[in-house]
């Protein structure tokens, strides 16, 4: 079907997208690499020449580096565990026959459409504020002292906010996967009297394997880049400074471009390690 003419036409049609993305990827990447080997302080003398690997060494040996990696991984792993576990439970619940299923699904999916700055501010002020927040009212109602969430429990607060945003996504994908499960197989096992736990372990979980992998990998990409939620809540204080946020501070707040760029290269390496796994799985799926 594909003639030589249509092949070259196809190439021309793909070209703009490929060229644009290539430029978008390569130009900033090369600039970041270039800056990372230089002493570059825009407000204090500008570009002061080569420093070799100094920025790389300094970034890693800074006392904030390892904590920031830990913070990043803690947020990613905690949110993943919470959203996947609750997502599976919620998806199984939503798959059951009930009245008003469509409406419930709309309620559950809603947080995903709330922009990160809004959800962070609403949670921070209206729920987690130690005097006027709803949680403070609730705590006082039960005779407990309200918690200063954003200072005393900053990490759990951020993890909670981000989990709230991503739970809908996990639920929706897992629900879609569950609905494609062969109903007869489940029914047969139900008739045979297989207990719920066994049915879950032997039939549902294996079927969800691919959906869970996709949820984990896609969310990881987005969670590694969590930014606005930290900017408008703690501003990186109280142990919530992620690697992304640390780099952001080096670049914009301390205006140390060389150091920030070296950090950027580390972030790119970290993201690439994750990306390789994602590509493998999506690529495999493409073959089917």
């Amino acid at each position, binding site marked *: 079907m594909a003639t030589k003419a249509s092949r070259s036409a196809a190439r021309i049609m793909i070209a703009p997208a490929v060229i644009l993305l290539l430029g978008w990827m390569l130009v900033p990447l090369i600039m970041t690499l270039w800056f990372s080997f230089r002493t570059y302080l825009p407000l204090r003398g500008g570009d002061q020449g080569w420093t070799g690997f100094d920025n790389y060494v300094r970034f890693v040996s800074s006392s904030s580096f390892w904590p920031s990696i830990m913070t990043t991984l803690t947020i990613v792993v905690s949110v993943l565990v919470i959203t996947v576990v609750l997502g599976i439970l919620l998806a199984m619940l939503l798959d059951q*026959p009930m009245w008003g299923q469509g409406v419930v699904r709309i309620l559950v999916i809603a947080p995903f*459409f709330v922009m990160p700055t809004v959800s962070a501010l609403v949670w921070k002020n209206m729920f987690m504020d130690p005097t006027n927040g709803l949680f403070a009212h609730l705590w006082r109602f039960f005779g407990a002292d309200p918690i200063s969430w954003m200072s005393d429990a900053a990490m759990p607060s951020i993890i909670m906010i981000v989990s709230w945003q991503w739970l809908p996504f996990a639920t929706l994908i897992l629900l879609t996967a569950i609905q494609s499960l062969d109903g007869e197989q489940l029914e047969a096992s139900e008739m045979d009297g297989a207990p719920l736990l066994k049915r879950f372990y032997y039939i549902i979980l294996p079927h969800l394997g691919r959906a869970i992998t996709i949820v984990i990998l896609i969310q990881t990409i987005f969670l590694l*880049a969590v930014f606005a939620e930290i900017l408008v809540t703690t501003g990186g204080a109280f142990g919530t400074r992620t690697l992304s946020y640390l780099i952001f501070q080096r670049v914009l707040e301390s205006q140390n471009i060389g150091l920030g760029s070296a950090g950027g290269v580390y972030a790119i390496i970290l993201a690439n390690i994750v990306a390789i796994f994602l590509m493998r799985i*999506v690529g495999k799926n*493409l073959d089917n």
Partner: protein
Amino acid sequence: MSRAVTPRRKLINTTIAWAIGLLIFFPILWTILTSFKTEGQAIASPPIFLNFDWTLENYAVVMERSNYMRFLWNSIIIAGGSTILGLIIAVPAAWSMAFVPSKRTKDILLWMLSTKMLPAVGVLYPIYLLFIELGLLDSRTGLVIVMMLINLPIIVWMLYTYFREIPGEILEAARMDGAALRQEVLYILTPMAIPGIASTMLLNFILAWNEAFWTLNLTAAKAAPLTAFIASYSSPEGLFYAKLSAASTMAIAPILILGWFSQKQLVRGLTFGAVK
């Protein structure tokens, strides 16, 4: 298809599911309710749920104080512009990959997806610098371009998975019947492709509307969209709960409604067709 269960079990399912659904939705509901309260009622202890004096005053104040319409307009231009521009570039690419696949099609698709994983913060300064050089800082044009580029891989992928489902035989049959290329595109392909293109537009619009890294870092006064409008409430004056709520409601309402219509496409778009 739906499994038969006893009414009692259905009732239990319904109760639990509604309770959890409302719990998850509650922060949004609470924000909407608070936006209609007076500031005094918004921080009343114990909290008031429904029996307050409903007022629209907060909306009026927010509109007046922060020029909401300009932020809204910027959001619409940035999300809408990047979506349209993205489609213009992505439709031909996805089309040719779906109908004239070559050995490298798969590699190109995967490579495109991999650009999506470049951490934004790693390239923030270069982009910032380029924007200053090109005079694009704090301009809607600049943000339209950046939003288009970060979402282009998703648009191409989504369109590709839709286009691939259009059967090639239909085209051949039409050709046998003597349809000219123009007729083929106009009467056969376009109607079949429109639902896919519409869903892609919807999802991309939502993603661009909510994007909060580039929009916060590359805008100041002129081109700032709603994400920045809300971020300005993070200062202590944001403790005016009712006004914060009104502003939040105004920022999320349009996209919440759009989002509810496109939840199915969301699965498809964000999983690149891997879960259907």
